[in-house]
Structures are given as structure tokens and as C-alpha cells.
């Protein structure tokens, strides 16, 4: 039995479709409701829905054998897990954004508002730039508008939220997509099951091969 942690929400639905299409379906999951665990003994899987940023914790600690997490979460929390596949869904970019017409004043410490403080620190440390990280949990776009920060570091999918708030991308830090991750110990003790899963998913080729 493989325990699979899926991120709740739109990405999770898209990812479940992939699992189902390669023979790891669990029909009850489509019924909705508030249940969090779904099991399919005949396909040898048990799925559970968790908060997207928690998937890596479930996998790292072995409560789930495998899981699906965004590259953003993996970069930010650096969990000690195997990163086996790029599922090619949930594609977006980690970006630096600023109010339109922003000019960076290199004399001063750059104030950066973000949910991803580690990513922001690593990115600016790589360019020798001193920054002041302002950790926020939501509505990051508000920070530069109110003068709380100079720029933001955040995920950009279509850019609509940025445009509507009169912000624009000034630098791309890295591309983001959903990854199949595995617990290191499970990978060994359930090697047959996990490598079969990986093989089936990569043979099918995700929607990412566009």
C-alpha cells in the first residue's frame, strides 16, 4: 500500500487526474465531501488531502510515502526527500515584482516582502545584495503599494493580480512546477511500488510535455 499526500485545491485535482490515468485511481475521491482519506485496496493506494505547504512535512516524516509538492515549497523548506519527477503541472514562476516604473536604489538596503523568505534571501545573497525580508502570509501585492516594502518575491502564474495592482515582474528567479517527492526510507523499502509509479507517470508523459 502506497500512502500518497496530495495538495488540497486545484493543483491537487490536476495531479489526482494523472494518478488516475495511470491506474492509481480511487473513485470515492470524486464524491467530494469533507473526508480527508481515500483508500483503494485494489490499486494499492491511499490518498490524503493536506494543505499544500504541508505535503513535504508528511513525506519527510514518513506519514506519506510519496507526495506532490510545488517546487516553491521544496526550495523554501528544503525538506530531506527525493525529488523524483517533474509532473509538468502547476506551472508558474518565482518572481521579483515591483510597482510599475520602479527604479532600484542600490545605495539602500532593499526591502522585500514575501512568503518565501529563504528563497528571497538565497537569491539576493547570490548577487551580494543586502535585503530586509518582511515576512507576510498573504496579499503580498499590498506591501509595495503601501510603502511597506520596495519589491515583493512571489509566485506569478498569469500576472493578473500584479497588473490589477499596478505591479510588474522585474526579474524571474526560477520556474516552478509540481514535483513528485518520496520519503527516503519508503523509497528503499517500497522501491518496487514507487519505481513502478514513476515509470508509469513518465511513460504517459504529463500535460507538461507541451
Amino acid at each position: 500500500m502506497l500512502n500518497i499526500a496530495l495538495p488540497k485545491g486545484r493543483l491537487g485535482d490536476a495531479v489526482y487526474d494523472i494518478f488516475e490515468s495511470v491506474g492509481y485511481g480511487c473513485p470515492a475521491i470524486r464524491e467530494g465531501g469533507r473526508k480527508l482519506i481515500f483508500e483503494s485496496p485494489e490499486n494499492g493506494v491511499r490518498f490524503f488531502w493536506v494543505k499544500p505547504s504541508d505535503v513535504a512535512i508528511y513525506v519527510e516524516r514518513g506519514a506519506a510515502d510519496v507526495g506532490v509538492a510545488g517546487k516553491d515549497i521544496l526550495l523554501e523548506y528544503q525538506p530531506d526527500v527525493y525529488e523524483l519527477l517533474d509532473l509538468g503541472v502547476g506551472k508558474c514562476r518565482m518572481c521579483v515584482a515591483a510597482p510599475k516604473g520602479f527604479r532600484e536604489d542600490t545605495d539602500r538596503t532593499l526591502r522585500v516582502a514575501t512568503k518565501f523568505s529563504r528563497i528571497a534571501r538565497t537569491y539576493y545573497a547570490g548577487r551580494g545584495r543586502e535585503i530586509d525580508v518582511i515576512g507576510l502570509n498573504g496579499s503580498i501585492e499590498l506591501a509595495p503599494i503601501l510603502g511597506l516594502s520596495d519589491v515583493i518575491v512571489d509566485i506569478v502564474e498569469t500576472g493578473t493580480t500584479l497588473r490589477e495592482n499596478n505591479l510588474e515582474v522585474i526579474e524571474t528567479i526560477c520556474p516552478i512546477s509540481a514535483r513528485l517527492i518520496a520519503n527516503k526510507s519508503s523509497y528503499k523499502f517500497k522501491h518496487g511500488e514507487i519505481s513502478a509509479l514513476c515509470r508509469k507517470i513518465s511513460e504517459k508523459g504529463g500535460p507538461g510535455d507541451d
Partner: protein
Amino acid sequence: MTQEVLKNEEKAMLRLRALYRRYGYAQYKMSKFEEYDLYARNKNFLPCDYVVTFNEPGGRLMALKPDVTLSIVRNTRGSAGACKYFYNENVYRLSADGREIRERMQAGLEYIGELDVLAMSEVIFLALKSLETISDRYLLDISHLGFVGGLLESLGLRAEVQADILRCISRKNAPEIEEICARHHVSQENTRKLTTLASLYGKWEDVRETLLSLCANEKMRAAVFELEAVLETVRALGGSGAIYIDFSTVNDMNYYNGIIFQGYVDGLPEGILSGGRYDPLLQQFGRDAGAIGFAVYLDLLEHFHRPDREYDVDVLLLYDEATPPAVAAEHVRRITESGESVRATRTLDENVKYRRLVRLEGGRAKEAGNA
């Protein structure tokens, strides 16, 4: 009885101690503290940057030891011939999130001296045996840094790109290796070699041909032959077949060289044993010798297959004011002599779970059933 009193990690330690002694390793006992200077001068060889320090009344800066190997290597400086030691010590390190200081119970074994195939094989064999004392569902992953390093060197990439690729290998992240290779114009053939190396997992017989096909230089070939000789000797010592080749076991390239390994037991999410060959540390101390060893993180066993305790005590002996002490004492003695545990008390504590209740009223026993 003793088995029930001891915790998982304590039981494991008793068995490990007997095992290591049987193969001629002597226990190395050390003090809780070391002079901070030792760690300051050897920062590269520490598992983490943080060391808990304090001042001795005399003014010397002392540290709670974050590592045992360093102390053993330093304190055995003068010895001629091979040093074979095992230890069971607590070390003090930062928790993974870097917010707390943790005490970790560690057992380990070190072989310092001239390393030949038998020396390396014996240590790996004892690593296997150590895992066997913990669980019958275990395995040991082995890697060789000469092999991984040899392949990376053959590509002629900058050091930081090599470090990025190494990080991907440790996560079995083949997709990202492909991206990095594409960015740095690594040939398709070499990219395939790197992703094969990262994804490879299996028993020696199943991966041997693949390893030989990956060899790009003498360094890699030498590593393959060393692995082969060692694995053969481990078998000759009576080692089980639970050994797998896995190059994602990279540990720390500053510290280790040559063969490295990591042990897992089913049911624990992380490796419980980690070790390898660490000649660079010996060189740091100006010694012309090799060293190989491993540590077992016994504290991880705390939550491993912990049986839920049904009862806190066999007999709850509840005595009243009118019971003479000698009579109560006599009951306590009789119960413990019969092999049961007893908790004598005047008041009933609802949190204590007991198998049966004995009430002493005015010195007379009344047996009541279970709670």
C-alpha cells in the same frame, strides 16, 4: 522483566555493546565537555556550525560535544597501529529547524589506522549487524565518493555547478540534472550518465554492469573494484545481502572520501546509521593513516514500534490509616517477590492504570477486581 523496563534505545545499546566487543573493539568513554578550541579549529568536520559553549570557572571556553569522532581522532594521536573503538555518548546539536538545542544519544564505531579491504569490510559488516540488532527489516545503502567524484571531474565543470549537480544526485532529482546539463552544454551522453547515476538503486549483481559502463576514468574504475572487493569480503564475514548501491548517499564531501554508507530500518522515516571513510580528518591532524566509522542515532528509536503500555503497575496496594506499617510492608514484599510490580499508596490516583487492586483495611486485605 529487564527487557520490559528498558527502553528501545537502551536495549539496542546493550546489544550493540556486546556485538562490538565480540569483534575486538574497546569502549571509548569520554567527558561531556571538550575545549571549544578543538571545534573552532576543525569547523569543517562538524555536522553543524553551532556549538554550545560556556566558561569554566578558570576562564577556559568549553563546549558540550557536538561530535565524538573528532575527540577520538585527537586523543588517539600518539597510538601506533590500528585503533578500534566504539562509543555510546550524548551529543548536542541544533534541531533541524535551528531553533532548539537537542541532546542526541549516539552509538558508534571507529577504525583508525592503515585501512585495507578487511578493515573496511569489517566496519561495514558491523554496520549491517548493528541494524540487525534493531530490526529484521533493515538495509544498508552504499556509495563511493571516488565514483561520484570521478564522474563529476570528467565533465570539466566549474566547482559551483558540480556542487549543484551533487545536490541533485543526493535528491535523485534527474529532471533538474537534465536542466543544469542543458544550461552548461554537457553532452547528451554525459547527461545520461549523470541521471543514471542519480536514479540507480539495486543490489551489486544487478548494477555492476551499469557501473562499469559509466566509468570515464581510472578513479571510477578503482572505486568499482574497491566496492566489489569489499562487498565480497563482507559476505565472507557472514554479512547479509541487505546491501544496496545508491549514490544519492553523498553525506558530506568535505568530510568523507571513498566508501560511504547509510542504514535504514523499515518504519523509521530517516536513516538511523550513517558512516564512511574519513581520511581527510586524519590529514587535518597531521596523521598518515586512514579511518572509517559510523554512528547509530539511537534517539530515533524513541518512537519506533513503541508498545502501548497497558498497565503502569501490576498491583495497586491501597492501605488505610488503620493498617500497621509492618503489615503493609509485608504485602509489598510478598507482591514484589512474586514477580509483580506494586504501587503502595494511601489514595487512589485515577491516572495510574493497574491490573488488580488490593485494599488493606485495618491490616486486612480485600482483593478487588480491575479498575
